[in-house]
């Protein structure tokens, strides 16, 4: 039973991530008065890409070849330890569980490992686009790390644990009145989410306009199965962030056991919470303009300051 559950947990995020991307695209289309593609379209895109032949740049090295696998692996590994509907940590034998992966510092740095290889892959083919994409990506990632790290630290200090599932369990018992600093931390986290996932107002995920793109610039040289892996990994990362945001800062309803009705309730609540987050991302992308590159640091420092403020409130009161 637990083994079965553990395997489900590992494949859960890669399985649902294209759906989330599809939902955001559909919501955006509706807000912009378009019909938009079906919400399952990203699955078809991925399967189409996997069936295609590939072209790799002559200038590229083994970094380009291996990077998509590393980046995808990282998102799968981190995703396996993120609580979605339960706070139970997947385990295979009594001594071998995914507990070490659920430490929030391990998560943040593993995701950063993916970003590191993504940026290297961007520079590998020697095109100007890729290089500048990498430069901007590392700039955004370095500055977003403050807000991301500190907002998770707020939750960690408030709950007295460094492991995400036990954070969720502990925060569920926190009285409503103590949630003010967590709301502030959530704002910081949400800004970091937008920046880390190349969303508005930091980056535009649906453009290939040279001057503005960051993420798309780095994967410009990819095609076929490697492009599919890159796109899929991006979707996984988005779902990881959304699941973390929904379950840490709004911890209610996440099941502590594998009983049927608890799981069902958790599933319904998870859909509602993530639905709200997806809607807000789509709303921001339909109503805001992308920031100029040198306005982005202001936003990211705002995120950092918000998180530090939240931390100060937590440790003072």
């Amino acid at each position, binding site marked *: 039973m637990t083994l079965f559950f553990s395997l489900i947990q590992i494949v859960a995020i890669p399985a649902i991530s294209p759906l989330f991307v599809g939902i955001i695209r559909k919501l955006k289309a509706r807000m912009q008065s378009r019909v938009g593609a079906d919400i399952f379209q990203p699955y078809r895109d991925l399967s189409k890409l996997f069936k295609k032949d590939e*072209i*790799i740049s002559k200038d590229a090295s083994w970094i380009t070849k291996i990077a998509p696998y590393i980046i995808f692996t990282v998102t799968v590994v981190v995703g396996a330890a993120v609580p979605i509907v339960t706070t139970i940590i997947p385990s295979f034998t009594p001594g071998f569980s995914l507990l070490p992966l659920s430490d929030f510092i391990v998560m943040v740095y593993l995701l*950063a490992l993916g970003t590191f290889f993504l940026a290297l892959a961007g520079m590998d083919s020697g095109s100007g686009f890729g290089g500048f994409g990498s430069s901007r990506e*590392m700039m955004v990632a370095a500055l977003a790390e403050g807000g991301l790290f500190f907002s998770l*630290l707020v939750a960690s200090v408030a709950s007295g644990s460094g492991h995400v599932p036990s954070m969720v369990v502990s925060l569920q018992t926190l009285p409503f009145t103590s949630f003010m600093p967590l709301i502030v931390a959530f704002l910081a986290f949400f800004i970091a989410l937008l920046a880390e996932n190349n969303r508005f107002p930091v980056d535009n995920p649906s453009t290939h306009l040279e001057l503005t793109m960051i993420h798309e610039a780095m994967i410009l040289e990819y095609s076929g199965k490697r492009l599919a892996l890159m796109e899929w990994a991006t979707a996984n990362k988005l779902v990881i962030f959304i699941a973390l945001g929904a379950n840490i800062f709004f911890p209610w309803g996440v099941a502590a056991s594998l009983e049927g009705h608890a799981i069902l309730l958790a599933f319904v609540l998870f859909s509602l919470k993530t639905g709200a987050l997806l809607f807000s991302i789509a709303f921001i992308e339909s109503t805001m303009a992308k920031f100029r590159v040198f306005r982005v640091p202001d936003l990211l420092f705002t995120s950092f300051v918000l998180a530090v403020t939240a931390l100060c409130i937590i440790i003072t009161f």
Partner: protein
Amino acid sequence: MDIMLSPIGILLLLSVFIIGGFGALFLDRLLNDGGRMGGLWAHAFALGGSLFGLIISAKTLLVGQGIAFSIPSPLPLFLFDFRIDGLSAFFLGVISLIAAMASIYGLSYQTHFLGLYRLGRLGFFYNAFVCSLMLVTMANQGLFFLLVWEVMSLASYFLVIYEHRKPENIRAGFLYFLMTHFGTAFIMLSFFLAYRATGSFSFDVWRAAAGAIDPMMQTFIFLAALIGFGTKAGIIPLHIWLPEAHPAAPSHVSALMSGVMIKTAIFMFIRIFFDFFPIASIEWGLTFLVLGGISSLLGVLYALSEHDLKRLLAYHSVENIGIILLGFGASLTFMSLGYEKFALFALAAALYHTLNHAIFKALLFLGAGSVVAATGTRNMEEYGGLVRLLPFTSAFFLIGSLAISAFPPFNGFASEWLTFQALFIGIVSASIIVKAIFIFAIASLTFTGGLAAACFVKAFGVTFLARPRSEEATHAHESEWPMLAAMGILAVLTLVIGVGSGFVISLLVGIVASIWLSNPSTLAFPFRQFIETRSQFADILPLDTVAVITLAVFVVLTVAIMVLSRSRKVSYGRTWDCGTELGPRMEITSTSFSRSLITIFQGILRPTKQTDVEYHDEEMRYFIKSQEVRTGIGDPYRQALYRPLSAALTMVASRVRLVQSGNINMYILYVFITLIALIVWAARS
């Protein structure tokens, strides 16, 4: 009794280096082959000595038996007093390990100097340097310590100016010489104050007398030690010699200087603040936290703006010293608050990072040495595409980059994780100022991590990826096997020491706990106890699990996709070029990569830009003949600190010079006046 753990063992160890050093000089003279044999002799002996040192260190830790002995000297107050305890053994081990790898690397790296400079001389100073590094960890008497400290500084100075026909090396060497003696002066001051307070130069007496020193005296001893050893460690703003001197030295010496020499200052900080005088008030811990935060953050920012590969690495040493000091400062703070367990934990974090930084920084410097040897330049703008020509070097450099950027499961992550945990403890303390400083420390460590990753994307990407940007980079050759072997061993170690974090942490906690044991011969840290305590620490950070899971998922995924897509073709084509031919000048360079981050932090970095334009017609100014743009980073330390200081010094010196008239009668008058004054003073008391 084991012969290696006896005084004879230690003296044998020292004699290896003496034979290695003087033998090299002798062979260089005798054979007249440019020093080829002498250099080999010296590095072989240094390798042997380092392995010997490693064995002594390991045996000390395994057996749990310290060594203490002394040899009398004819000089008053001076004593050849040796003591190897847990802490010494740890630092001796780190030094020996890095020295062994640097020596293997040096065996073939030194041939690049053949015909240009005498290799015997390199070998002599190299042996003197390694030997003095080891002695620094063993010296147990103030004046003896100062002697070996000075030998270490001088030997490294001569290694910095080894390529003495390059004027910039002489300049870098002079700055290093000045700064290191500035530091030594403060160390002497600190030791003399301690002598005044305790009446002895023996470290053992200092340990016993710690409680009896009055607070004012303590403050001065600590302050002088902070400035003195801080100069060697490269704490900002005392770091200015570091980015000049480390790149100038031959690369395997740079690895030693950056990897272990600056750590001797950390060793002495631990000795002074935890071992000799464990009475520091909380302000000292907080000072170290602030200094560590500033050094780590500024160090990585300066590294980002560098395009000289070895200078970039040197600035990262400033950053990592900062991270070590964060753990050290946290420990000192907990100590003065009375939380001894947390202090133990935080100091273990600092030691862990000391070990890790030594390994990955040595790896990176050796990698940089291979790149410099292959291309003949340190300018990253002239590299590019080296991943195809230097496949092994680039793979090892990538592993070093991953380790220094603190990615799991490499060793840099393990120690940064532990440092984070130590700092998290601090934010729940009672005082609001302590909380604020710990939050600052966490923030600086967080941003340092992100910026270091950005910096190493730049360092690796610009050096090894894309297309070559210069003629030299298209004809680079992979290094010989001893150089690759040294890097390979270090690369494996970054992974082993990261994945084995549970074991390493328990070992370090054992070593830290042994600092407070007064009698070195009864150190209670035998190996069995590590094994027993291991279960307590195994759950702290099981990076082995993280590594296994990640590797398993990676292998399953890659194999699955390869099998499923085996019928799909892969073809190779041109990079998307928008219809024009892509040249090497269109690639992103080091300067352009970091430009956006420099612009964001321009308040701190103060970038400068100077444009010189020459026109065909000065009157019309329409047609530009040539244009030169120079970009740089402001140097507030020299402008605001060192230049006024040296100006003031020069002014005082020129005033004092007035007494030097050059007239012999005048000097006799001075002697006479002094004599009268002394007689009056003696008669009065």
